[in-house]
């Protein structure tokens, strides 16, 4: 099998990284995250002036600092102040040691109040600089906002191989540590289980589209659902349900299947195409795409299949819905002036906003905190994966330019 060198360049066994990174809290003086420095729920977020400094081996500490700043900068909520310049409101100080694996003592100080708000020791048996940096960024973000950071999450996505296959891969949310999951046949619809341990995906094998499930810590896949026709995974619910579309009875309809009992339920009955069903994070609603009204549009319905209602009315072509974690927003790809762009709309259909304006943009997927959206775009030629903030700002490409990467799906929070 041919390997894509650009992808493998970043390849590391991420399960080892997850397992080997130990976090030991040894001092928790005043450690309660009592004060919220940035209220991310309020409009017109101010940027928090923050100073990040470190001591220890110069190469490692520079790399850590660089990754942490890049992480925090993605949120658009921080303003970095150099250590020798006054003006920082909080200071994150790292004491880095590479004597035995990698360990960092992180202390965060509030310069206004003059008190230490966090002191924590993080250690890893291996030199997992990236994972370490992401963990530190999560701690700093938690101090600043009171919320959980997404810097240890991952994104599953598809890559076109030179042999005409379509492979499923997983990478860190910032594009690093790409790992191959499936490289047989064509793979399309895919989704994370809500515990972040499994990937569900549809793969074509010998002209049959089957639904597979794979535990990410094991190399083996098992068939969850197989029938004649087209079977495509949409999403997962917190109670182990998998939503998918199947044309087993003729027309493509929405179904749910229980991951453990394999119990199957048909939710829609319409003449046209029904695809891409995704659960809201509480598992109570499903958004999906249907052309029952003549053109493909986004609909929502209760998880039992009742109360289907059309959500999108603007534009002739709206597809691939994704829910924000609080259920407030739905992002989707829609056609406007001959190009496909990313939109967000409240789940009641109000407050429609266009987030992209260049090239064609498809397959949006919310980060688990609902503040970032991953999507695919051809704005720079070949299709690649980008991320942006919920307000459309801060767009950046996270996959290399020499690979065709599509259909990002953001993981839930990972342990």
């Amino acid at each position, binding site marked *: 099998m041919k390997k894509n060198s650009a992808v493998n360049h970043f390849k590391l066994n991420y399960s080892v990284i997850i397992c080997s990174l130990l976090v030991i809290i040894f001092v928790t003086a005043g450690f309660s995250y009592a004060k919220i420095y940035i209220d991310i729920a309020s409009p017109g977020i101010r940027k928090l002036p923050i100073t990040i400094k470190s001591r220890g081996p110069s190469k490692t500490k520079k790399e850590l600092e660089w990754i942490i700043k890049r992480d925090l900068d993605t949120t658009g909520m921080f303003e970095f102040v150099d250590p020798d310049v006054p003006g920082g409101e909080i200071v994150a100080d790292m004491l880095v040691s590479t004597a035995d694996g990698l360990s960092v003592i992180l202390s965060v100080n509030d310069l206004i109040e003059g008190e230490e708000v966090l002191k924590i020791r993080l250690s890893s048996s291996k030199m997992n600089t990236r994972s370490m940096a992401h963990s530190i960024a999560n701690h700093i973000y938690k101090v600043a906002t009171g919320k959980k950071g997404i810097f240890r999450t991952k994104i599953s996505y598809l890559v076109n191989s030179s042999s005409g296959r379509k492979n499923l891969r997983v990478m860190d949310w910032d594009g690093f540590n790409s790992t191959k999951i499936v490289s047989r046949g064509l793979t399309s619809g895919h989704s994370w289980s809500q515990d972040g341990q499994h990937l569900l995906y549809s793969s074509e094998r010998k002209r049959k589209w089957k639904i597979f499930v794979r535990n990410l810590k094991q190399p083996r896949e098992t068939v969850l659902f197989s029938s004649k026709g087209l079977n495509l995974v949409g999403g997962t619910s917190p109670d182990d349900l998998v939503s998918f579309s199947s044309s087993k009875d003729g027309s493509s309809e929405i179904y749910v299947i229980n991951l453990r009992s394999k119990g199957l339920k048909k939710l829609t009955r319409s003449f046209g195409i029904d695809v891409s069903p995704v659960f809201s994070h509480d598992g109570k609603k499903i958004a999906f795409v249907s052309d029952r009204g003549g053109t493909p549009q986004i609909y929502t319905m209760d998880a039992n299949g009742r109360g289907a209602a059309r959500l999108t009315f603007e534009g002739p072509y709206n597809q691939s819905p994704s829910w924000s974690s609080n259920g407030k927003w739905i992002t989707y790809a829609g056609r406007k002036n001959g190009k*496909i762009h990313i939109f967000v709309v409240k789940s009641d259909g109000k407050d429609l906003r266009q987030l992209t304006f260049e090239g064609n943009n498809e397959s949006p997927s919310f980060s688990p905190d609902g503040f970032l959206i991953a999507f695919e775009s051809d704005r720079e030629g070949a299709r690649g994966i980008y991320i942006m903030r919920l307000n459309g700002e801060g767009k950046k490409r996270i996959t290399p330019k020499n690979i065709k990467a599509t259909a990002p799906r953001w993981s839930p929070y990972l342990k």
Partner: protein
Amino acid sequence: MKKVIILVLLIFAIGCTKTKYVKPTEKPAEPAEETIVEETMKPEVEEEVIEEVDIAREETVAEEELSPEEKAKSIFKDVLFDYDKYSIRPGERPKLDAVSSFLNENMGLNVIVEGHCDERGTNEYNLALGEKRAKSTKKYLVSLGVSPSRIIIVTYGEEKTLCSERSESCWQSNRRAHFVVAK
């Protein structure tokens, strides 16, 4: 004896001609398509091969019958579709008439109908759309008297496009039902 030699030489010549014309089809314009189904050879080139063989056959009376599979490749033309549509355009019907006549003459062969889409739109929707295109193609063939059990359908959505330029002519050639002979 002379006749035999001439015959042998002619067959040899046919062989050469064949090689000459078939070779370019082994390198399609799109490298990404290289390992897809072998049957996606360019019809124009195939036609040329057959013409050559037909002329040669007249001269030599050699038993160079084309296999039905090879014939099918020249008879089967992609049925094209409108954007986001899966109904058979009236102008495409003659292509289906030709496929059904071939199948009715070659009862031992079956056909695989592949539904394809252009690259616009999501993979999932396009897979479903490709399936609809394959199904409406099948339905039309059945209406012409082909037994449904002889038609296998499969969808590739936007996964196996013939070209990748962002132009209407490229998108149109990708919105197709493609036929492959199966035994």
